[in-house]
């Protein structure tokens, strides 16, 4: 299996920020997105997830292949951890089985009956990352997944990603730290920064109007 995007131009709000983004992603492979704040990592991930339509180019993930984990954790305070995971598993059609696999991958069984509101920030993050497992989708798109995780939990996250890759999945991860995933492809997003000419070409008010 091979996925990816070809010659993608991405927009954040009205501004074109990325151009000529071509990524190829094979089953079992992970790409780590690097780049300073504001370089367009989130924009690229949201475009790949189908949340933001690309200005030009093609995204080679069918919408039914990806799972997107953004800054917000997608958990409901009033529901318990297991209920939260079950909702996501049901929404993506993996059912009880998916929710249980998700809880196992992040060792959430001890927290299963805890309401999400009562979790610490790190525990919330784990439950949020477990949603990716619950979706059963092959391509994970993760935006700063390790925020508020301690070293041991980062290792657990890395283990979950490795297991996902070994099972034939793939992942695109935007992060600043070293995840310890072993040999991964690192892509610096700032290499795709849109040139002025491209930004101008997609701005209908770029030329003098009178």
């Amino acid at each position, binding site marked *: 299996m091979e996925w990816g995007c070809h010659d993608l131009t991405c927009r954040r709000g009205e501004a074109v920020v990325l151009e000529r983004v071509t990524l190829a992603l094979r089953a079992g492979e992970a790409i780590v997105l690097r780049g300073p704040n504001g370089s367009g990592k989130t924009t690229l991930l*949201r475009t790949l*997830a*189908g*949340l*933001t*339509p690309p200005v030009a180019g093609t995204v080679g993930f069918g*919408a*039914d292949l*990806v*799972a*997107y984990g*953004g*800054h*917000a*954790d*997608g*958990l*409901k*305070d*009033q*529901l318990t951890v297991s*209920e939260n995971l079950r*909702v*996501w598993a*049901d*929404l*993506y*059609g993996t059912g009880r089985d998916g929710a249980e696999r998700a809880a196992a991958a992040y060792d959430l069984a001890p927290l299963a009956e805890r309401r999400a509101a009562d979790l610490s920030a790190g525990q919330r993050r784990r439950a949020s990352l477990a*949603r990716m497992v619950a*979706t059963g*989708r092959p391509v994970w798109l993760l935006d700063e997944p390790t925020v508020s995780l301690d070293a041991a939990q980062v290792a657990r996250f890395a283990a979950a990603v490795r297991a996902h890759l070994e099972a034939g999945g793939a992942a695109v991860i935007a992060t600043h730290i070293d995840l310890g995933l072993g040999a991964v492809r690192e892509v610096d997003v700032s290499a795709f920064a849109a040139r002025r000419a491209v930004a101008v070409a997609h701005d209908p008010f770029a030329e003098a109007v009178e």
Partner: protein
Amino acid sequence: MLTLLHRDLRLALRAGGGFGQALGFYLIVATLVPLGVGPDRATLAPTAPGILWLGALLACLLSLDRVFALDREDGTLDGLVPAPLPLEAAATAKAAAHWLTTALPLVVVAPGLGLLLSLPAQAMPWLAAALLAGTPALSWIGTFGAALTVGLKRGSLLLSLLVLPLYVPTLVFGADAVRRAAQGLDPAQPLLLTAAISLGCVALLPFATAAALRINLR
């Protein structure tokens, strides 16, 4: 779709879900109006259908700004877009959840409030019927309004400004059905028109709601 509906119902019923607030608001409106206009049956009875409809409409309105705002803040909406469920179906589920948790309880208590406002007894079943027929329109229109304003920081006043004009036909036909019943006339025609508006809203508005959501999630 049922997953989402089930989740929203559970959230509403859990502590802090706000279930019953709209109901309390409706009760207060029905209590305050006689205090304002006087206890005279002769003035209360003719205005009762309008007050009961207006109260239901405002009670629905007040709970709208949380329909999508919470799901957007916590990232649930981002997760819904790649999900196999079409966004139109998600919009339908959200509107249905709003109707079940907010509007349906209003329908149930409305005849009781009708007693407080000296609504003639023969109009009671028609009051319940008209609200039952019309409140889906309120929920579905309101969900559309909520989708339009979901990206805004202080959207709740704007939401009222957008949604209330859209409520006009439902209010007119729905209240007219009750008024006719109270006067001993046949309420069937406005009642059917109310139901027609609701059916139209349920069938078509989710498409507009989903379009607005997609725009706001970009």
